[in-house]
């Protein structure tokens, strides 16, 4: 009995003497919400920006319990350093211990992305505090500007802002939510390449210009992040995708091209498309489309050349018909469907060509060739990414079925 008590006391003492074992009070840590990496002024180094949540302190109104608004944040930038080092330098700047466990977003500046993210994104995943479910973004500009310009219009904590922004990407599919795990895995894979969403800072003075040439049937304009002609709201915007070859950024997809990418990835949940009215070419028809089923891929190797045939089924509903033509009826609907199919096909083909041109298999066509081999060695020997993909023959076929027409079944004309 006494030995047991002595043992228990020894154990307790050893634990108490051993220190806190790494426990921190919640108010003794600085919670970093977002991290940005940019090219530093010196070559080979990184400029790191930290966005820290600075809530707390002061009494609430009416002498109630002390809570500060949790929407406060501040950005601190450290130049000419490396990611882990900058964390220690950050400690010299802020009073509380910084911790990365709540980082929601990792932003990479375009310059650094084009130079190669393998040194930054590729290596931080080893550290315990960076996790695969963090979102990654490439900023069309510099990451520091992005973090500083970020002023959400809703009174929400920065964490909520980032997460809701990412989760709601599927609403329009003009940008894709990419997390660190997907980027990392695709970067190191033999059969696909990484894609990261594009963000940018908009001057907010209606001065944006569209980019890229949309296919003939499409009237929706295509934009890149930071170039949407608008005024007001949070200066940062999310639009487009950056595609990579290995760890270097090699191209930018516009909004519509991003949609095509999401179509190929099979997670196109919906979005509006403005197409030309087949019977009244000066006017447009707006439809909202979604994938009817996952696209079907048929991969073949013919004479050493890879051939892929993609079959896409789109379902849609008609949103507006300014011309008043009765596209809801069985007589005219096929016309509209044909226009949509042709437009989307053209857009898909253009996107795929572009990606092949920059040698980036962001859509992951290589996956469908994995089944053709029996061992890993053969797959590696196939050399998909460098050799076969740029030369691959990829054909697309799109079928559209318009199922609904929202609330109106026909349009009565406006009496002049």
């Amino acid at each position: 009995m006494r030995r047991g008590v002595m043992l228990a006391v020894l154990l307790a003492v050893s634990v108490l003497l051993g220190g806190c074992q790494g426990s921190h009070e919640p108010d003794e840590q600085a919670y970093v919400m977002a991290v940005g990496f940019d090219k530093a002024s010196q070559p080979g180094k990184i400029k790191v920006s930290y966005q820290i949540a600075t809530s707390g302190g002061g009494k609430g109104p009416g002498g109630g319990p002390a809570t500060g608004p949790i929407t406060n944040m501040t950005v601190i930038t450290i130049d000419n350093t490396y990611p882990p080092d900058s964390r220690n330098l950050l400690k010299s700047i802020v009073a509380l211990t910084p911790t990365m466990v709540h980082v929601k977003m990792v932003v990479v500046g375009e310059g650094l992305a084009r130079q190669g993210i393998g040194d930054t994104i590729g290596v931080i995943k080893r550290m315990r505090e960076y996790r695969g479910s963090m979102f990654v973004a490439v900023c069309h500009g510099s990451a520091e500007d992005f973090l500083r310009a970020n002023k959400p219009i809703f009174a929400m904590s920065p964490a909520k802002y980032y997460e809701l922004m990412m989760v709601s990407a599927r609403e329009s599919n003009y940008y894709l939510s990419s997390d660190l795990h997907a980027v990392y895995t695709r970067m190191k894979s033999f059969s696909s390449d990484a894609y990261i969403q594009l963000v940018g800072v908009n001057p907010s003075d209606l001065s944006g210009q569209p980019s890229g040439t949309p296919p003939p049937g499409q009237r929706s304009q295509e934009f890149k992040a930071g170039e949407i002609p608008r005024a007001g709201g949070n200066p940062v915007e999310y639009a487009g995708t950056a595609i990579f070859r290995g760890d270097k950024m090699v191209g930018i997809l516009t909004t519509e091209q991003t949609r095509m990418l999401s179509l190929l990835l099979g997670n196109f949940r919906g979005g509006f498309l403005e197409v030309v009215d087949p019977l009244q070419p000066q006017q447009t028809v707006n439809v909202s489309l979604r994938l009817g089923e996952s696209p079907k891929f048929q991969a073949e190797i013919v004479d050493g050349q890879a051939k892929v045939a993609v079959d896409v089924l789109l379902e849609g509903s008609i949103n507006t018909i300014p011309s008043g033509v009765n596209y809801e009826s069985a007589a005219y609907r096929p016309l509209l469907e044909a226009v949509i199919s042709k437009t989307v096909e053209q857009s898909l083909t253009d996107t795929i060509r572009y990606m092949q041109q920059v040698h980036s298999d962001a859509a992951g066509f290589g996956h469908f060739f994995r089944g053709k081999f029996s061992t890993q060695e053969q797959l590696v020997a196939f050399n998909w990414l460098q050799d076969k993909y740029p030369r691959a023959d990829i054909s697309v076929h799109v079928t559209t079925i318009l199922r609904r027409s929202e609330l109106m079944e026909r349009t009565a004309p406006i009496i002049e």
Partner: protein
Amino acid sequence: MEVNSFTKIYRSVKNLLEYKPPDTPSLFVLGEEEYQEDQSPAALETRSLQNDVQELGALLRYARRLTPVMEKAADRLRGGGPEVAGINEEVRSLQKQMIELEPILLEYYGNDGVAPIRPVSASLQENTETLNVIYGLPANRDIVMRHFVVAVNPPVKAMLVYMDGISDKKLINRAVLEPLMQPQFVQHDIYDKDMVETIITRYLPNAQASPARGFQEVQGGINGGDSVLFLEGAPEAIIVETKGWEHRSVEKPTFEQSVRGSQEAFSEVLRVNTALIRSILRSSDLVTEMITIGSRSRLTCAVMYLKSVANPKLVEELKRRINGISTDFITDTAILEQFIEDAPHNIFPVSVSTERPDRVASHLVEGGVSILLDNNPFVHLVPVSLFTLFHTPEDYIFKNPYGTMMRIMRLIGAMLALLLPAMFYALSTFHPEALPTDLLLTIASARELVPFPTIGEIMLMEVSWELIREGGLRIPGVLGPTVGVVGGIILGQAAVAADIVSPITVVVISVTGLSSFAIPEYRLAVAVRIMRFFFLALAVAMGLVGVGIGVLLISVMLCNIKSFGVPYLTPVAPKTMANLDIISRGPVYRQENRPDAFNPQDISRQPHISRTWMNKKPTGKDDK
């Protein structure tokens, strides 16, 4: 010396000026008494002299009793006549008394030290002497000795001894004094054979009466509330059952209230309790065995079980253990249980303590055994598994889904009461990544102005909660609501507004405290409350890993506990046949088996089709 004015003045001045310390009584110190018997030769001699004095006293008293009889006999013989017969009885009684005056018996039973084990003497005077020694009369005013004469010709002197307060005087009057003192009620035939037996079988209209040969039984009777009748000339006494004292009546249960169910609870009298159980289980198989425990208190402990169902080995082991207790006083069934359980230092209870008879009855039917103790309204049911401790009778009264839901809620309550403070501490300090960011930022900003570390806050609130709970037990009824409100305000509002604790800690501790009351068995709730601090200590040391280690250790410990031969976590570990009554409550018509772990003699209690009415057609016309 002459007292004149000068002396008076001198004395008064002296009184005025002289300092006399105040007259305090000397302090009473309970020093150590020498309880050793003095073994010096002088003391031994005194003691042996005292023994001789006792023996001589007995002989002398006998002589004094003998003398008048002999004189009377001489008178009668001289006068001659039929009255010689009257002396017969006295002579007979004197003869019987003479047997007791054998030197060896006098030597053995003669001194005061062995008064309690003396046999009943044929002489009332000797018996009175013995009773004086045993009970410390006449200082002890509780014992009443009622001398009377039995109305028979020739009359028999009798003495009724009972303890005032625990004997029912009405019953004494009606069942003992009245029949024996009524003239001509008692016939002469008491002199024919054994007087005691005749009186018992014919002239005592009482429900229970038995003869007693020695003062052990007499004491047991008097101390228990019975009356003892001594007769002159009979070397036996009669113990008449006249128990009756003021006790609480059968009331509603205080701790195990139910919304819809029987509202009776046990009271303090053993016989009332056994009666309540018998009124529910009207079976001839229900056996009540009585065991007396405690050398000074002599309380009766009753063990009740169904003979055809309960495992006989269990009953035997239980009785063996209860019989093997050697102590002087056991007040409560829980104390009794701590004497007989396997591992009393283990804080988990190995029996269910209940004050409802219906719960006892259902446990008995399942093959368990119940332990009742005199003067105790709580009955213990053994053997028990951990899951049984979460059952209440209401689970059966309400229908199936509600019963199951309530049991799950109780289990959740137990988990919360055990782990919530530890988990809160571990998550907020060791693993802040597991909390949602907004919650964490709120906690952090709420803690900005609080001067204590998180563990300090938690301990402060825990201690306050325990103080309030413990103090609430002893608040006089008038002050109860006031103190409750003040306590709530202090804990809830003022402490938070004064930035002594943060609001989240208040919420956590309140939820913890309240959920510990969801556990039906109070001793289990106490165990859970103690374990809570153990988990908190582990969480402070090692975070969630510490909590995991704690859970592991508690699981292994629980698997090790046996409740009177039944492992504590039956039927999960070891895996036995489970009836539909562990966590979820199966339908009443599917409860076909008794718990397997009890190994009862008859495992099946209901046939497979217990709703036989479903097999037959209903009365009335069929639907066309």
